[in-house]
């Protein structure tokens, strides 16, 4: 880390003075605070990274217009889709036209980029030109759910049943938080470029894990974190007076009770106050130099994907364990040529900027960046767009112990089905946990009489893409 972010100092000072004001039990509190943020397990020797940033391209980006070039598809453009591919397979919105499926050729040009010569679509010029040597493209992803809502649920929780913990919650439960004044799992959303499919809060819910591990949304409008702003007429000082008095009274109560829950309550109020103090600074970009805001293509924390990417870096610097960005705009059932172009324009520059910026700051080595959607899209045309598709899609990962500049796995000649080195969602989870130093088979939580895992009873670690 090149520079210690100013906030860390500020808030620790602040916290010290905050604690000083109360006369009793500071030491007990400090140790308790430490305990409450500690994780359940120590990372093992396979640990290569400490945190994860997921850039979720919600809606299902077409692999065929982004990272998986299929010349054969071009050849067959407009011709009937060979039945051998589609027979007996699940389809979504094309259900009505199952007997009249036509091939749609790639709508964007592909070229080879960088020293590694990775093949990337011209729709993503920044990713292609600036970070192709930093990323590992996976072309052989598969999932189990063909509709948005359950597909996101599956991608986040490894299950199609609601109420299971999301990956960010699992990881925070396992490793604990490194930030003393921010939640360990932060979610940001943006829209634009295509049909913006809804995203449920289930996607960052902690399910049956303790609720402090749920994702907390950082918002661009209204309170940046729900209820973070003081009531009108209450200055930060007055708020602190109130919190101090709450603490005093709680401590008086605890003199006879010695109830750890009260001690925990006191520490949570302190954490809440620290969040109140640190969040405004977090979302204030005024101390970012112009070349950085230009790199991302943002002016301020305005809720765009670009500003969310810059926020992601700021969160990573502050020790947030799991940062998840959703960009809701990749559902291109029609007009996919223009659609991909539009959406890509909103995410391409900032995605590349994030990787470059992390790298520049030495943070990329221990930060895993993941880019991808909940599923891919059909080689078959839906008008001039593509339908949902689960047998093949692409993702990329960078940093955090991932081999840079490689492509892993392959689909068949039409990009219909992953056939070489197939990567299932469970395998992605297993690999991510492995990079964090967590054995996905031993990392369990007992619920309803069963030891649950993020990877259910599956998951293989993709050793070939790990440094």
């Amino acid at each position, binding site marked *: 880390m090149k520079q210690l972010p100013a906030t860390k100092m500020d808030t620790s000072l602040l916290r010290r003075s905050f604690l000083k004001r109360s006369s009793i039990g*500071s030491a007990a509190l400090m140790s308790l605070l430490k305990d409450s943020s500690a994780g359940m397990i120590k990372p093992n020797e396979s640990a290569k990274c400490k945190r994860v940033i997921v850039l979720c391209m919600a809606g299902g980006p077409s692999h065929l217009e982004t990272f998986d070039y299929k010349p054969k598809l071009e050849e067959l453009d407009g011709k009937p889709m060979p039945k051998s591919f589609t027979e007996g397979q699940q389809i979504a919105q094309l259900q009505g036209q199952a007997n009249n499926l036509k091939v749609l050729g790639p709508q964007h040009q592909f070229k080879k980029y960088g020293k590694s010569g990775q093949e990337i679509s011209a729709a993503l010029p920044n990713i292609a030109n600036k970070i192709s040597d930093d990323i590992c493209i996976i072309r052989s992803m598969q999932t189990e759910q063909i509709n948005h809502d359950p597909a996101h649920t599956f991608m986040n929780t490894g299950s199609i049943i609601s109420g299971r913990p999301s990956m960010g919650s699992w990881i925070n439960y396992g490793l604990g938080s490194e930030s003393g004044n921010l939640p360990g799992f932060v979610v940001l959303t943006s829209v634009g470029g295509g049909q*913006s499919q809804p995203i449920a809060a*289930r996607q960052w819910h902690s399910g049956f894990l303790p609720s402090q591990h749920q994702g907390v949304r950082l918002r661009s409008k209204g309170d940046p974190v729900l*209820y973070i702003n003081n009531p009108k007429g209450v200055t930060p000082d007055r708020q602190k007076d109130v919190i101090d008095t709450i603490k005093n009274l709680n401590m*008086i109560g605890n003199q006879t009770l010695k109830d750890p829950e009260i001690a925990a309550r006191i520490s949570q109020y302190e954490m809440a106050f620290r969040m109140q103090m640190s969040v405004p600074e977090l979302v204030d970009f005024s101390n970012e130099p112009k070349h950085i805001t230009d790199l991302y293509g943002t002016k301020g924390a305005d809720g765009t994907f670009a500003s969310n990417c810059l926020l992601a870096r700021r969160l990573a610097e502050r020790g947030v364990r799991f940062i998840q960005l959703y960009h809701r705009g990749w559902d291109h059932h029609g007009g996919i040529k223009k659609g991909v172009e539009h959406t890509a324009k909103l995410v391409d520059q900032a995605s590349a900027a994030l990787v470059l910026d992390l790298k520049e700051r030495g943070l990329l080595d221990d930060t895993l960046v993941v880019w991808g959607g909940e599923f891919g899209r059909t080689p078959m045309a839906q008008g001039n767009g593509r339908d949902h598709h689960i047998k093949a899609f692409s993702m990329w990962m960078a940093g955090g112990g991932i081999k840079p500049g490689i492509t892993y796995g392959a689909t068949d000649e039409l990009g219909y089905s992953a056939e070489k080195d197939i990567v299932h969602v469970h395998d992605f989870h297993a690999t991510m946990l492995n990079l964090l130093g967590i054995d996905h088979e031993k990392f369990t939580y007992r619920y*309803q009489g069963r030891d649950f895992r993020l990877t259910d009873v599956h998951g293989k670690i993709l050793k070939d893409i790990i440094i």
Partner: protein
Amino acid sequence: MLILNSIQFSFQKIFYLLLITIAAILVTESKASEIIAFNRDVRPILADNCWSCHGPDAGNRKAKLRLDKRESATKEVIIPGNANESPLIQRILSDDDDEIMPPKDHRKKLTAPQKKLLVDWINQGAKWQDHWAWIRPIRMGDIPKEKAIDWFLLKELKKKNLKFSELAPSHTIIRRLSFDLRGLPPTTEEIKEFQKYDTEESIKRAAKSFISSPSFGERMAVHWLDLVRYADTNGYHADIEWSVSPYRDYVINAFNKNMPFDQFTLEQIAGDLIPNASTEQKVAAGYNRLNMKSTEFGIQDKEYLSKYSADRVRTTATTWLGATLGCAECHDHKFDPFSIRDFYSFAAFFADIKSVGYYPDAQKKGWGETIEVIDQNTITKIAELENTLKSIGPSNILKDSRKEGNTWQYIFNKPNPEWKLPDYDDSKWNSGEAGFGSLGTPNGKVRTEWNSSDIWIRRDFDLKEVPEKIFLLIQHDEDATVSINGNNVENLKGYSTDSEAYAVHGIDTKHLKIGKNVIAIHCHQTSGGQFIDAGLSSDVTANIEIEKQIKELRQQNRKMLATVSVEPRTVRILPRGDWMDSTGEIVGPAIPQFLSKKETRSRTDLAKWITSKENPLTARVFVNRLWKIFFGNGISRVLDDIGSQGEWPSHPELLDWLAVEFMESGWDVKHVVNLIVNSKAYRQSSLRNERLKVIDPENRLIARQSRFRIEAEFIRDNALAVSGLLVKKVGGSSVKPYQPGGYWENLNFPRRTYKADDGSDQYRRGLYTHWQRQFLHPALLAFDAPSREECTANRPRSNTPLAALVLLNDPTQIESARTMAQKIITDPALKDDESKISSMFMRVLSRPALGSEMTSLKQLLEKHRKEFSKDPKSANELVSIGQQPSPENVDQTELAPWVSVARVLLNLHETITRN
């Protein structure tokens, strides 16, 4: 700081060493003297470590070895009485990597004490027991009902040389009773009342009063609604609103009228199949429609039908059986004897429910069958109003025929012109009851058919005196000419549409006389339906008001998703749970085979079996969950799995006693609740001494009461109650409290904005909050209310900064603080700061403030008083939060510092804790 820390650390270390030593002594003491009990000691080890490969799941069984049945285990690897020769022991003690069990690469490892226990157990003869929960509960001993709970608890306590803790202070007991039974704090008056009698008597009285208050049902409903995953939106994708709130009210009412639990079960699972089912029973059957549904374009109907079907199995099995039957969707259960066939046979009970997988355009077209419901409250209210209307006389001079038909003379052919005169002879006319009209005329209550274009009606009425005013009440379709005593009084054109509130027309009293009068009406219609009825009244101002109210109430009918039984869908076993695989065998409805082989065909049969004596699970599951409300944890802490992987109950005999008592009392919920809250165990202090901290840190033995945070809904209720804002209306459509702006921005199809309710609906209890599955109200979410996408039996109790932020900054909390502060400072009886703080403290915490607490609060008050006096703008901003108009006759700079004091009190740990 460093020094302090290390001192603390070593202190901690000593403490833990001490703890471990004491615990060790205890363990040796208790274990050496006791025979190993299979269910308590051995079963958990086998289940957890062995059964995933050597258990009930035939598909995954290794080496064809089963260790979940004594027969097979003793045949193969256990020699009872001889551990050394038993291959099982040889394998678990082996130091050969290829031999050792569980295998070296397996996640599970046996600990040394576990190994020793298995050795001892086999040496003691390897006695086996069926899993406790699969055996029907029986009542141990013949103990008087009122003493049974204490008797069982004390029996265990004696073994450890413990006894119950002392009696809790009375303010604690009343608070405990109030939160447990109503989810609300006690009022100051209730606390005073409680202190009038001895504890025993006071508890009896308070319990009786709380259990019979409508809040009891609201309180009990919260957990039930979690189980049945009741919510106001469809859950998947667009997450749009639907109407199911009548079901919520059904649950509240059922608990309030103490509906026997077997009836409650039958009505929910199969209420629609009850012959001549009442509306209420049909609403109850809406239970079957509460599952998440999807309207996402492009989904496969069949896939989603199978999702819904599996969801129903999970929910019904968890709610009533405490069973994880849902785990057998893809393969036989790994730990319990549920087969994949059991799963799909159970699903088949619900195959008759009319349902599709994909609900296209549900925003407009809805979610299938619905019924119209007027809730009981409204029905009662309407009946009351109608009675009032009767007594003050709807048309007190001449009754109209809304309630009962009044007889008129009538004719369809044009009579001679004298027909309207008082002494006209109408004896040749027909007589019939009004209203007159064609059947099917919208809204009209037709008692005598009239299908032609014209009708003439007349009748007389007597007057003892001529009233000051007179009004004509009339419904006419279409043109009506009305005359009284031969004088034309009204010429009405067109039709009046409202059958509930008749049109009212004032009439000149000069046409009336004492004695006999005659009213005559000619009605003419041109097309469509026809109708005529009329009455006369001397006073309609009250009537009009009441009729308006009745009309409004009638419009409050709500829709409810209905369960409609149709030809059952074919249910197949889906291998690996794959909905695309249609090779599986077709199955019909059946109870899981190891529980019952009884022939069952319908949901009615299922419901009846569930509450039959044959079923060992339901009564236990229910009373165990009830116990959690009153002691903080279940007798078995795992509320959603009573199977092998659940928890051996701390007091199995007590659990069974309660279960049997529950059944034999006629499934009387209030009876069991009464037994619990009137026990001595219940009224203990919750303070734990050093000894208990060590021996029983989790309070399983109940040598004291428990302290725990109240539920999300009750945290809201508490703030509203102590401030006096709470509107205690029971039932109705869901309501929308304040919510941070933009919280719904990630919802789509359609995009929507949240609009908080105005007026009294803003101050309703938390359980009425609009339950948006994908974005549950954040104040509820922060205190662990579940999204209700899935059946939830156990809410966690977290303690997070997000929860702190809600209590600190949620406008509901601020408005409550302000309203309370305002009450206190305008109370003329409270003269000085100290008495004001005392009063506020009492309201919120049910006890007087300690000296140190008083000092701290006074300091805050003084400081903020100074600050706000210099900053009236801030004071105004703070006291203007919320929809309650900001007070005008109060000095806002004086009110604002009191808001700070009130905020402190609402945020205290003790305030949101029941102890």
